[in-house]
């Protein structure tokens, strides 16, 4: 058994800083002092606040006196737990045996994730590489990490808090490292810390030589149980966490977000969590939804909706966070938000489980297809789905109905080029035969434009057209309202271009009262 412990020393600060993302970057520079307040006392501070003299334990007013520009947030265990879950999800991509180490202080959120990785070492190419990839997969979540390894779960959790975190592969090394660790790292030890210090017991190793009965009487059974679990003398079963079937994560913004750019900042945090949840299940998201809860306006007859939902569907399931952000940005840029946003929620249910795409160094056919799908998605996100179109031939003799444009469907169309490639790069056998049978058609079709007539010759822009070929009679469509009875000619304009004109045969036909019409140009 080899346990890896991921300890997030400043989880509560980071989870609070994520809610600040709603404020614009100018308002929250990197050196902004941040502190969390719990029951009117400072609970946690960042480095910038520490530099100004704000320490944990100070009163709120004292902290404000020391650093007037400090951002004070309320400590919130539920928010921390919400931020902790994605870290566990990201770890689930490496081993199924992932559990959260319960917090030592009552009421606080867990801040350590435990992974049992013995079975995954071979697959990931050793502990070093595994840890490297683990760090890389947690990095988008934006947490500072302390990673320790030990032969026992409890031991790893303790060693992750030692500065610097220790890595011990064997039980023997784990015991040695634990013996040197300070005693207050043990969960129950914290409450008895002063008593232990008074007795001259500073290291865990100092406790080992003492009579067990006496220790249990003074400090409780739990301390002994924890030491035994850490030293591998007692079974320490852990309940592995299972990702929820449906993803839902919320982010309450510290400041209300007025612009879509601010909303996007917050949504990026949620998207990183979504990607971690997807990675845990080796899945790809096909559709997700961003809910923006608005500030309520207490006015009579105010019609502002409570929330705006933004539904984003993908043509190709993805878990590439950069791509998802781009799509979201394009969609957000189009949405007009009725009111400032206070809270964001991201939901995803529609996922696809499949093997991860193999990483390619050089561009391949598959990577090009994928890139093309993303390009189309990006264009559709900004221009609208129906603006990216595919052409299709329709069986109709009337030229204006022989082809139609339809929005390029989100689902991948049958790739004719692939089918053709299978046949050896030849066009379909029917197409060539069809092309030769079919008389010439112009590439450009326009709405029929009536032409003037002089001496029985049609005029275009005041100059006569020379008829070169025709007539080709098209008489079709009596079954629907648009009967066409036309004689088509290919004509040449004065500057030498070829145009397609027709003469309506019957004055009764719907296109007008007879005469010449320009219908197309040979491009």
């Amino acid at each position: 058994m080899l346990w890896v412990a991921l300890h997030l020393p400043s989880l509560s600060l980071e989870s609070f800083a994520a809610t600040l993302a709603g404020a614009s970057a100018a308002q929250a520079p990197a050196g902004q002092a941040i502190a969390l307040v719990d029951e009117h006392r400072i609970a946690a501070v960042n480095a910038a606040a520490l530099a100004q003299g704000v320490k944990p334990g100070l009163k709120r007013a004292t902290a404000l006196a020391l650093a007037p520009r400090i951002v004070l947030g309320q400590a919130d265990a539920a928010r921390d737990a919400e931020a902790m879950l994605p870290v566990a999800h990201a770890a689930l991509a490496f081993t199924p045996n992932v559990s959260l180490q319960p917090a030592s202080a009552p009421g606080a959120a867990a801040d350590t994730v435990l992974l049992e990785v013995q079975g995954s070492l071979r697959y990931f190419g050793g502990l070093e590489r595994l840890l490297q990839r683990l760090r890389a997969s947690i990095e988008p979540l934006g947490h500072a990490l302390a990673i320790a390894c030990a032969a026992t779960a409890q031991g790893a959790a303790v060693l992750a808090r030692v500065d610097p975190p220790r890595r011990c592969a064997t039980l023997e090394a784990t015991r040695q490292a634990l013996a040197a660790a300070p005693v207050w790292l043990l969960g129950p030890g914290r409450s008895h810390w002063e008593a232990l210090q008074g007795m001259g017991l500073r290291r865990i190793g100092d406790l080992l030589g003492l009579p067990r009965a006496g220790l249990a009487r003074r400090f409780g059974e739990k301390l002994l149980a924890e030491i035994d679990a850490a030293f591998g003398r007692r079974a320490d079963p852990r309940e592995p966490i299972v990702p929820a079937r449906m993803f839902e994560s919320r982010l309450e913004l510290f400041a209300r977000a007025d612009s879509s750019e601010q909303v996007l900042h917050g949504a990026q945090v949620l998207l990183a969590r979504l990607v971690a949840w997807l990675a845990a299940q080796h899945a790809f998201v096909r559709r997700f939804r961003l809910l923006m809860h608005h500030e309520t306006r207490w006015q009579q007859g105010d019609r502002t909706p409570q929330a705006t939902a933004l539904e984003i569907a993908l043509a190709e399931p993805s878990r590439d966070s950069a791509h998802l952000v781009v799509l979201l940005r394009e969609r957000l840029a189009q949405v007009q938000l009725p009111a400032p946003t206070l809270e964001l929620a991201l939901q995803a249910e529609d996922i696809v489980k499949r093997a991860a795409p193999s990483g390619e160094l050089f561009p391949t056919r598959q990577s090009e297809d994928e890139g093309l799908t993303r390009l189309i998605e990006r264009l559709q996100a900004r221009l609208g789905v129906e603006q990216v179109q595919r052409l299709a031939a329709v069986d109709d003799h009337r030229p204006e109905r022989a082809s139609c444009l339809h929005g390029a469907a989100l689902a991948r169309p049958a790739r004719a080029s692939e089918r053709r490639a299978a046949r050896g790069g030849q066009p379909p056998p029917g197409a060539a035969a069809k092309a030769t049978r079919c008389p010439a058609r112009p590439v450009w079709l326009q709405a029929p434009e009536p032409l003037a007539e002089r001496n029985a010759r049609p005029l275009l822009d005041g100059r006569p057209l020379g008829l070169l070929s025709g007539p080709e009679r098209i008489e079709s469509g009596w079954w629907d309202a648009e009967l066409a009875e036309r004689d088509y000619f290919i004509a040449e304009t004065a500057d030498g271009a070829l145009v397609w004109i027709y003469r309506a045969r019957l004055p009764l036909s719907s296109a007008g009262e007879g005469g010449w019409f320009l219908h197309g140009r040979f491009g």
Partner: protein
Amino acid sequence: MDASALPSVSARLPRRPPVEPLASDPAVASVPQDGPPAAVRRAPETLHPALWLGHQLGRAGVQTVASGFAALDAELPGGGWPRRVLSELLLPHPGVGEIRLLAPALVGAQRAGRQVMLFDPPAALSAGALAALGFGVEELLVVQTRARRVDGPKLASLTASREDRAGLGAARRPVLPGSDSLWALEQALKSGHVGAVVAWLPPRLRVERLRRLQLAAHGHDGPAFVMREAAAVARPTASPLRLSLHAAGGDRLLLRILKRRGPPLETPLELELPSVLSGAARRRSPIDRERRRFLHVATFVDIA
């Protein structure tokens, strides 16, 4: 040393008159010169792909796609449509034979399994005509970045019904902002996953916009054609290749190379396009008849 082997290395200067002392005086010739060695002077493209002699076509370093017209290939630097840059085509109006001119290159890209994208075609495309030119019609992607115009009030009903069936009618958005049209083109060029791009640009496009597209085209591995109005000839361009197209009667296309990496081409090229007319019909063309009459006269004069 032959005088013709001594043109200036500087790229754009026309051919200079030969400098006599260098060629004739052996004492001067034997003295080591400051300039580059003779081999480099003959073929400066070996030094850097962006260099070429004033009187010859730039060849090395230009990746090209055969245009399908031998006469045109001979006049284009590198022997075909350039990749990774914009090729600018100036048209007096749509329908002078531009699609038939580009068809071999575009169909070639489709045959290679790559995507061809059309941006803002000026009119409705006919699937039958494109299929006859060899296109895989269903694989073409048409991107409408500007909302489609409805030409005349008289014919609005016909147009509207067509759009309704295409799913464009009711849900169609109003005219999109102008920046979107170039944004979409730029994205397609930058992505590098598109095989060939044909774009009909809005009129009176500012040159810095075009330069931006030209920069984006560096990532585009394939030909990129932009169609512009004929009046754009008076404005400068950022693209290294600029052609103007004119119809020349029958199934012919008159093509002027206005700008290329090489000397300007004085005489326009006349290309025979894939024909839409039968032989008999082509002979009926008045412009063609006139041309043949000139040909007769020329032949007669020659014999005389």
